[in-house]
């Protein structure tokens, strides 16, 4: 509802993003445990980046997941930079798929759509067969900066960005492959482009015109199931209501 901002979007089965990177990995293992406990043949996919791959809690999670054979796919999105730090300067081993040690790992070309699909299928079957967790490293790239405070060019050259964009862009690669194999024509692609543009514009419109949550909701959802309580605030005489 806007209280978390763009980083914190949630949906059914989508448990959201985390500001403290690496913190979502133990949470993911917990969700995987719930899946296996409830016996619903589901698994949990937990994503983190090459920067977060150096956090201690990830290794704690690997240990627990392997010990208890949790159906969890750990995906490391390796875009070569942890905001401003290149992977060679941050990690003693840049083979992120091997960092699971006792957990099997796959290295996947993250810029190839079909490759990612097949690898995920393999990983999902692995987990569903009860063999325990698996690590996947998706090798990919980031064109822009990491965030609003990162220009994106102070630690790498523009030529590098251009090169990746022209040679390994996933959408272009797939498009060329389909054209070369006569799976679709250029006109069909144009139609798809137009439809996508329309959808994105509609979504952007919806997001910008959507009203902001009312001020009464500032303190809602701090706790659960409690009778509405008063939250102390900036002044002792003004208290806000919190509804759980």
């Amino acid at each position, binding site marked *: *509802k*806007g*209280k*978390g*901002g*763009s*980083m*914190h979007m949630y949906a059914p089965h989508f448990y959201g993003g*985390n*500001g*403290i*990177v*690496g913190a979502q990995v133990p949470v993911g293992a917990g969700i995987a445990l719930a899946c296996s406990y409830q016996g619903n043949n589901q698994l949990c996919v937990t994503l983190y980046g090459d*920067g*977060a*791959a*150096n*956090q*201690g*809690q990830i290794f704690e999670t690997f240990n627990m997941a392997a010990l208890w054979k949790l159906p969890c796919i750990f995906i490391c999105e390796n875009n070569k930079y*942890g*905001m*401003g*730090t290149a992977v060679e*300067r*941050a*990690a003693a081993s840049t083979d992120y798929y091997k960092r699971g040690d006792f957990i099997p790992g796959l290295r996947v070309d993250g810029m190839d759509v079909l490759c990612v699909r097949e690898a995920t299928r393999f990983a999902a079957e692995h987990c569903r067969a009860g063999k325990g967790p698996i690590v996947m490293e998706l090798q990919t790239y980031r064109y822009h900066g990491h965030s*609003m*405070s*990162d220009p994106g060019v*102070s*630690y790498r050259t523009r030529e590098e960005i251009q090169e990746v964009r022209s040679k390994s862009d996933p959408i272009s690669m797939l498009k060329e492959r389909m054209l070369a194999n006569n799976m679709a024509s250029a006109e069909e692609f144009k139609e798809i482009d137009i439809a996508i543009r329309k959808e994105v514009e509609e979504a952007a419109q919806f997001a910008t015109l959507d009203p*902001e*949550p009312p*001020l009464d909701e*500032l*303190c809602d959802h*701090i706790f659960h199931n409690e009778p509405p309580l008063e*939250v*102390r*605030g*900036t*002044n*002792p*005489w003004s208290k*806000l209501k*919190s509804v759980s």
Partner: protein
Amino acid sequence: MAAAVRFFIRGANSRLSVGTGTSGSLGAALLKLSPSCSSRSKTQRRHAAHFTYQPDPVPTQYGETQKMNLFQSVTSALDNTLSSDPTAVIFGEDVAFGGVFRCTVGLRDKYGKDRVFNTPLCEQGIVGFGIGAAVAGATAIAEIQFADYIYPAFDQIVNEAAKYRYRSGNLFDCGNLTIRAPWGCVGHGSLYHSQSPEAFFAHCPGIKVSPHKVKDNIKCSFTDGDPPHHSRAVMQVPSQIINNPLQKSQDLTKYKINTIIITMKARLKRWICDLLSVFFQSVVKTGRLLVSHEAPVTGGFAAEISSTVQEECFLNLEAPISRVCGYDTPFPHIFEPFYIPDKWKCFEAIKRMINY
């Protein structure tokens, strides 16, 4: 002398813009009556606090001064430390290119990559590593990218750094460690880039929590390993973010003179004698106190100040001590302008205190 108090003055066209641009200490404003203030009672009531702001003269006892903003001051302090202390090292996430707040710009080029280097993304590791370096004798300056990220390192700070000297009977200490962590809301930070964790650490004996206020303060903290109490590792918590709304709120124009506003950001010096004695003197003079910070009000540092001041100056107080702080919720994204204790909330609180 870093002023612990700002006097907000009412003036026809005076706007207090102290703080963002000046380096060195920010003294209390010199106040003088405006020539247009007459002695008639009506105008006396209206212009009782009609003062003209006069900025402090530039301090000369430290040599040349230069006008810098906060980040430049920090960079300058780090620069001085690295040049005067051959054992000093700076490390943290993304410090090599200058850091997200540009506090380490140019230092790596100047001092080499063995003294200014990036660490992987591991706060617990960074702080633990810093403690080790400090214990061995190096002046270690660890940077946590945002204060919100400091919690994985909480154990290292509270259980290791704070207690090292105490538990070893002064045989070992990590007094040479400084941890820099920018805190506070930045406009779009939301839950994990806007927190103010000073209260958590102020509660821990053995570490010093101090703001980036003046260059002298920063430099002192790098070299200071020997505080009056049993503080050990030195930690600086806030690094003011330049476009912070609370900072802008210093441009206040309509306040009466006998109210003191203390903003936690700019005020939190060593929380030992200096800070409190200044508060006590001010309270004795004016009888009222308002403490404000962005952190949630329950258990925030304002509570500590409030409680100590009422213990010492109970009979001098003419109104209950007012705390204008953040709400007891996680830091919201969209509601940020309503969440933070801005000038209007402070104004409201001051009015109530005056009319108590």
